[in-house]
């Protein structure tokens, strides 16, 4: 977490000047606004924030944010973000990408990042399709579904991101909805504030290619009695936070409850599924190399090292 600047920052301070080229009505706008709202809410100095993205429509997000921005490679966003975060532990790191990026081509890194528990927030723009390549099925589209540009129904099943995150070791796992920016901003702010790897799976509409899960579908406009297909976990008194991180039984119970909720599909729960306070990867590094705690790698003087003891040992 970086130091607050004396002047109060507003959402405008986190907007870049770049022209936006997303489709009108894209769920990405909601997520972008949510991020900017969250940064303003936390009053983070834009110089102390770095935003990383994968490839796809969502990958363009950092260009629209006034902070250090890294638009990386398809599926590799978490690896680049991890390297950056470890090099400078004073920098707030926010990573984001699409569902194909994070749960498909990047699935291995999704798991690796959970295991490490590096301190960053990771937002997945989950719209069930590969938008930029014109609407193929993404890893979250269920078996038997067919969006409008798919020639045939999907014959492979969708994955469950929340359950995957639980199994991988993420220490903060939440779900949000792109068209509810205020709520999403609150969740993102919590994810950034959380110490450790935080996943926010953001359900998102793709007005151009996803004709199944549209704004109207989420609103339940097609139901006999119109009602939202989403509900908030906290509204049902659900609390995913582990009170005692040393209590294995409590951890198992909380994880099981989160996984059980993650399989509910109508309505879909949003909110925080699971949260636990555990040592981060950085904490473990500091235990090994104490000097890095106060002085991140990037500020270390690495140019006056005496390698003679190593050479002496070779005599």
């Amino acid at each position: 977490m970086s130091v607050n600047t004396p002047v109060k920052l507003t959402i405008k301070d986190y907007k870049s000047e770049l022209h936006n080229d997303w489709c009108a009505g894209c769920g990405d706008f909601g997520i972008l606004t949510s991020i900017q709202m969250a940064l303003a809410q936390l009053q983070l100095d834009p110089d102390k924030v770095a935003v990383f993205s994968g490839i796809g429509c969502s990958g363009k997000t950092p260009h629209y944010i006034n902070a250090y921005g890294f638009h990386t490679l398809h599926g590799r966003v978490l690896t680049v973000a991890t390297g950056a975060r470890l090099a400078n532990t004073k920098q707030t790191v926010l990573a984001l990408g699409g569902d194909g990026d994070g749960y498909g081509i990047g699935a291995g890194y999704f798991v690796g990042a959970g295991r490490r528990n590096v301190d960053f927030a990771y937002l997945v723009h989950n719209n069930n399709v590969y938008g930029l390549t014109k609407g193929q099925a993404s890893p979250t589209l269920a078996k038997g579904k067919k969006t409008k540009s798919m020639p045939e129904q999907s014959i492979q099943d969708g994955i469950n991101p929340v359950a995957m995150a639980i199994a991988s070791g993420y220490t903060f796992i939440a779900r949000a909805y792109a068209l509810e920016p205020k709520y999403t901003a609150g969740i993102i702010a919590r994810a950034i504030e959380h110490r450790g790897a935080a996943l926010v799976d953001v359900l998102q509409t793709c007005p151009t290619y996803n004709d199944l899960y549209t704004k109207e579908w989420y609103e339940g406009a097609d139901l006999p009695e119109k009602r939202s297909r989403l509900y908030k976990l906290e509204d049902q008194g659900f609390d995913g936070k582990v009170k005692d991180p040393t209590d294995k039984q409590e951890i198992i119970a909380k994880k099981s409850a989160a996984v059980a909720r993650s399989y509910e599909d109508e309505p879909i729960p949003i909110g925080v599924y699971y949260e636990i306070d555990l040592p981060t990867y950085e904490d473990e590094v500091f235990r090994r190399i104490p000097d890095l705690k106060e002085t991140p790698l990037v500020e270390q003087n690495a140019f006056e090292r005496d390698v003679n003891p190593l050479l002496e040992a070779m005599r």
Partner: protein
Amino acid sequence: MQKNRLTWMIGGPQGSGINASAEVFAKACSRAGLRVYANIEYHSNIMGKHSFYRVRVDDEDIRSYRDTADILVALDDETLTGDGHHRRWPTHFGHLHEINEGGGVIYDSEIEFQPKESGRADLRFYPVPFMEIIKKALEEVGKGEQARRYEVMKNTVGLGASLALCDYPFDLVAEVIRSQFKGKRSEVGELNVRAARLAFEHVKQHGSAKDFPYTLKPGSEPKARILAKGYEIAAIAKLKAGCSFQTYYPISPATDESVFLERHQRDYNLLVVQCEDEISSINMAVGAAHMGVRVATATSGPGFALMVEGIGFASITEAPGPVLVLYQRGGPSTGMPTRQEQGDLQFALHPAQGDFPHIVTAPGDLRESYQDIFSAFNWAERYQMPIIVLSDKKLASVYTTIDKLELKYDRIDRGERFTGSEWTALDAKGPNDSANGHNGNGKGADVKEYLRYALTKDGISPRSRPGIPGGRFWVTSDEHDPDGHITEGVEMRMAMMHKRMGKLALVQKAIPQDQQYALHGPADAELTVVAWGSTKGTILDAIRVLEAQGKKINFLQCRLMKPFPAEAVGTILRKAKHIVSMEENYSGQLASLVTEHTGILIKDRINKYDGRPFSEDEVVRALANAYAGGKIEPVVTHVR
């Protein structure tokens, strides 16, 4: 009697500790002022498969191994006669046939082996009761019944027995053994010394141990040499250069370097991260490089095959690194994981899609590795591009004496940096210096605005790092504008391609000539050898032998592969009377590169791709043949 020119070889199953005794022997010789060149051959296997270690010792500088040895220590029968009895297609035929006339063979007397049937009546055979000796050594401390637990001490027994043959002072070796077992393990050290001494005495009592024709005496004035492995030198170069972040995924033969660094990370505040795969390794490194840290990674062919998209990413985003040490091994695919090959040169030159700048260098020995890896970090930051240092299995695992390890070019150069909102870096470059009369900001030359990819005259934009006020930037793997935002515009595309690719000409001009290539030997040679990388020492050793026979041969060593010193190489080769290339790959990848850049066709290509490095003898034979105008053929080591 041949004094101070000896090759000692120990062979046994993987896991039997042959490394330990070979390295003790090497160290004992090095400390006594002798020069050592030792190399190991081993299978990709944890326990049981045949491995062997050669230790060549000499008064003179030696940089290669010989085909033959003078003393062989065999911990098993496979070491003597090969694995033909349990393999349909034998992998080797043992080492008996590689022992010089009159040489000695020490073997475990438990092995069912009949020297008389070996067909080598000229050799002296020494059956040694390995386990009995271990038991005896243990009995002296009342642990006689535990002999089987100490079976690994067989290699020490073999070493002790050998010393009796070559008449080397036992105490020098005992001292090294003790130094390897310090603290709590000193008791084990003493046990090893005792076992070695018992073996030493056992062989001494053997009549034919007297007047053994190959002897070793400590040098008269021990020099302050070091005895180092290649991966250690690579790691130390990284530390010396200020590398603070190393990523890796375990892979033979690259892993040792990262493990060495990890072992010392606390002492040098360097972070080593073991990643989930090599895609992660390279991209973590790129991420850290953009943050302003000197970063490195190390891998081998299969891992490099995964890293390639990250190299293109580093290059288009003008990341100041990483420095990647590529330890080549036998390919293709998984190939031969623990064996030698120089098969990745063309791959390293063209690792990913599109045209992009990167530097590829191929040091020829440990001293050159030290320099080039150190320099690579400067180049990475000054020219903002990834650097590949080509090494290989042989350079990684060779254990050899180095007279003096020093850097000729030891300055740290962090390149041009934007260090804060004071605009110094950009002012120094001057927006009006740009070829286009502007720095790309579209707001005129007077507007002072930090642009990560400013269009400067020489193509180098001062780099910022996240966290710096006023240094805000964006990075994208897409083509981009000076801000770092995506563009597909024609003008900007052309400007950025020229900016990036143009940096290679700066690199070519800036890298010292002796780090680009070297011509060893007389200018007016009858035969010119063109080669690169770790074959350097072998070729130099072979030329020394041929020179003594009156043959005039020189050697063009290519070191900087990209950008390639085409003009200089062309000039040298156009004067050459007869050119042969020597490479440890199938196709002659350097020979093709030379043709690509100079138009000179190298037809005579001496190649070796059996997974083993050239020996001195092989190069002597191949070059003598070429010198005499013989037909050029590939070289194969182990023929019965």
